[in-house]
């Protein structure tokens, strides 16, 4: 099934490297999906999302820095990982960022590694997808991978 995005927006997502795994939803976003939370939209802003408060972990800096996003994911067990290689027993997340001004990076996207080594991403308002390589979702909107995190994999292997 083809995704609903404009191919020009995600030029690396060509046929054969991805599969759509959900319908469009604004119930959760990519960072929430990386944290395996499908009930909340995670973002360091005040306000509500369809009647539900926008979620940001208590005590985590409320800004869009990569460090803040890493700290947010640390609240659900993620720690620094030197790479995105598949390690049995570990669940990894890749954080993406764009350079908004020289030397200043703003977090834009998070992708979570599945037990077989492929990756899953929630594309903003759009669908969840599985993609072969973490860099398959590199694009102008998401920028590039800037950090990897990992946590002990606790969910069944068939995720």
């Amino acid at each position, binding site marked *: 099934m083809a995704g*609903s*995005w*404009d191919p020009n*927006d*995600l030029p690396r997502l060509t046929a054969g490297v991805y599969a759509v795994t959900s*319908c*469009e*939803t*604004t*119930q959760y*976003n*990519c*960072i929430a999906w990386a944290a395996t939370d499908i009930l909340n*939209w995670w*973002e360091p*802003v005040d*306000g509500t*999302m*369809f*009647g*539900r408060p*926008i979620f940001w972990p208590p005590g985590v800096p409320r800004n*869009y820095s990569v460090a803040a996003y890493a700290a947010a994911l640390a609240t659900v067990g993620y720690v620094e990982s030197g790479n995105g290689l598949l390690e049995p027993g570990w669940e990894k997340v890749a954080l993406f960022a764009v350079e908004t001004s020289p030397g200043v990076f703003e977090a*834009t*996207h998070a992708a979570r590694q599945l037990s077989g080594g492929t990756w899953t991403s*929630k*594309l*903003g*308002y*759009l669908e969840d997808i599985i993609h072969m390589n973490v860099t398959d979702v590199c*694009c102008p*909107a*998401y920028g590039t991978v800037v950090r990897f995190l990992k946590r002990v994999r606790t969910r069944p292997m068939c995720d």
Partner: protein
Amino acid sequence: MEQQSTQIARVPLTHISNVAIVQSGSEAETIVYANSAWYGEQAVVEKDWIEFSALVSAWKRETRLSSSLRNVFASAYYKSITTMDPDKVVPLIIRQLILEGSSPYHWFSALVALTNGNSPPPALGGNVRDISRWWIEWGRARYGRQLGPE
């Protein structure tokens, strides 16, 4: 161009071809005539709907991939939409919700603001489809035929 029936159609831009813009008598607004695959024949399409739809398309193109509501609502296209005359833009947004069906976009904050705080009951919680249905029913009760054919 021979004037067709004055059926007001909520036609997505993607269904419009062969657009011709003509002045309609002494009316200040221009009526756009278009061949519509949606209806299989010429239909009158409101100029406001054309302009609104163009802004919506541009807004979505700019923000659909974003996981940041800050970026979604900071869009200049969104601001153009939400600073339109509420009496004009609210029925257009309701029409858009009807078109979006089970996948409504980020319209609900704008609707609350444009309707002076009118909002769905808290009991609906975060159910996107229920909230969308509520707004559509509210819109039909308020704007009726202005929303176009069901």
